[in-house]
């Protein structure tokens, strides 16, 4: 199991907890992560120029193709974007040849033979629940964790997505393997609002706050995600959400899935950068006695 670790934009510049926990956890399961310095997949700029987006994604894929290894894309945005790039160009040969002509000028020729994986897929489908269970030394008992898959882990369904839009339950199953409780709740597949940030931060944060409230109403005492954008909205901006909505109830500990796996298999919280999570994570971990 060797992957090119493709971090995208947000993880290596800000969401350090995701990168660090991933680098801690995956090798413990025999997953080897190779450095892969590539640039933006284009996704945030799809609305500015679709062709530029496709070209940027194709470039990332082409570089991976040269190295001959599959990509691990921990960001939901990168993951969907690279798959969509592949898909759209399969559908439109003219577009493909146009994009290829740009790549050629950079000495790149091929991009459609690269597999792209997401950490949720690697954990659930490749490592498998049994292996995860075996390694658990600190079961997350007492934690009722809401899975927030994030839109692009599930949609659009005409391209391969790690979670089933009809019944997204891979993250739940991983959480249960870690000893936590997890179940379905209304609007589980709902949106964190991140893409609205550039246009209207306040309203974007309101969207995130609503999602947090549905999780609290469904009886959860924590939540998890494996997308840096979702983490930004659900965790980092939780205080802002309280201010903007005027609702102090918007308070729920939120973890990266990789952080939770790390905790359960006995990695120290500091090594998982739990102190970057802005939501009340320490309190809940202490309360249920995980740390």
């Amino acid at each position, binding site marked *: 199991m060797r992957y090119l670790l493709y971090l995208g934009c947000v993880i290596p510049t800000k969401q350090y907890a995701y990168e660090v926990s991933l680098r801690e956890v995956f090798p413990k399961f025999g997953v080897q992560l190779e450095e892969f310095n590539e640039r933006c997949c284009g996704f945030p700029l799809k609305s500015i120029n679709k062709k530029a987006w496709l070209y940027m994604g194709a470039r990332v894929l082409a570089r991976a193709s040269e190295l001959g290894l599959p990509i691990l894309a921990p960001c939901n945005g990168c993951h969907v974007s690279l798959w969509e790039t592949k898909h759209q160009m399969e559908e439109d040969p003219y577009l493909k040849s146009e994009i290829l002509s740009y790549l050629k000028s950079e000495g790149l020729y091929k991009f459609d033979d690269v597999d792209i994986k997401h950490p949720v897929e690697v954990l659930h489908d490749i490592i498998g629940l049994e292996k995860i269970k075996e390694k658990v030394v600190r079961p997350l008992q007492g934690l009722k964790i809401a899975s927030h898959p994030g839109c692009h882990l599930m949609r659009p369904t005409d391209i391969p997505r790690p979670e089933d839009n009809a019944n997204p339950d891979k993250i739940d199953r991983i959480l249960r393997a870690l000893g936590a409780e997890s179940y379905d709740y209304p609007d589980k597949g709902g949106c964190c609002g991140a*893409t609205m*940030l550039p246009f209207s931060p306040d309203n974007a944060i309101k969207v995130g706050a609503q999602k947090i409230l549905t999780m609290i109403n469904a009886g959860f005492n924590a939540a998890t995600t494996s997308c840096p954008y979702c983490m930004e909205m659900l965790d980092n901006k939780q205080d802002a959400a309280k201010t903007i909505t005027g609702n102090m109830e918007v308070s729920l500990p939120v973890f990266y899935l990789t952080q939770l796996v790390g905790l359960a298999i006995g990695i120290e919280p500091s090594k998982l950068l739990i102190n970057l999570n802005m939501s009340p994570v320490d309190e809940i971990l202490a309360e249920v006695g995980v740390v």
Partner: protein
Amino acid sequence: MTTEVFTTRIVEELKNIIGVHKPEFCYQCAKCTSGCTANKVFSEYRPHEFVALANMGYVEEILKSGVIWACTECWKCGQYCPQEVAPVEVIIALKNLSIIKGYAPPKALVEMTKNVIEKGLIQDINQVMTKDFEFIDRDSLGLPPLEEPPQMDKHRNILSKFFGVVMK
């Protein structure tokens, strides 16, 4: 009194950007708006209406309002639309068209575009504060530096061409 001139249906320029999706199939069930993330917080953001307006050729009207930038690209509308319209893709195409027509996108997006052209990433490396009021970044964490990938000059050139309009 001015009478309505029905000259265009969906604008060809827009159609070309949309690609495979089929706005002309829309029968205004408003399923898209019923579950739209952006509509929850922006009542004037109504994807079914954008599709209707686009279908009647009233594109400028949408572009002028600028509210299309509220879309969170959650893809719910694309997923559940009964007529394969994928309003989200129509809206992305509208945003592309608004750039071509010289309307300004949200400032933060211009900033991201600039960064992408210069550094390949939408933002600079941040110093982040922990709960213990400590500032950390890649260096302090001992994470590998973000080295420049090969051929960045050529990459930058191509990107500047694509994004020329935005930067003006």
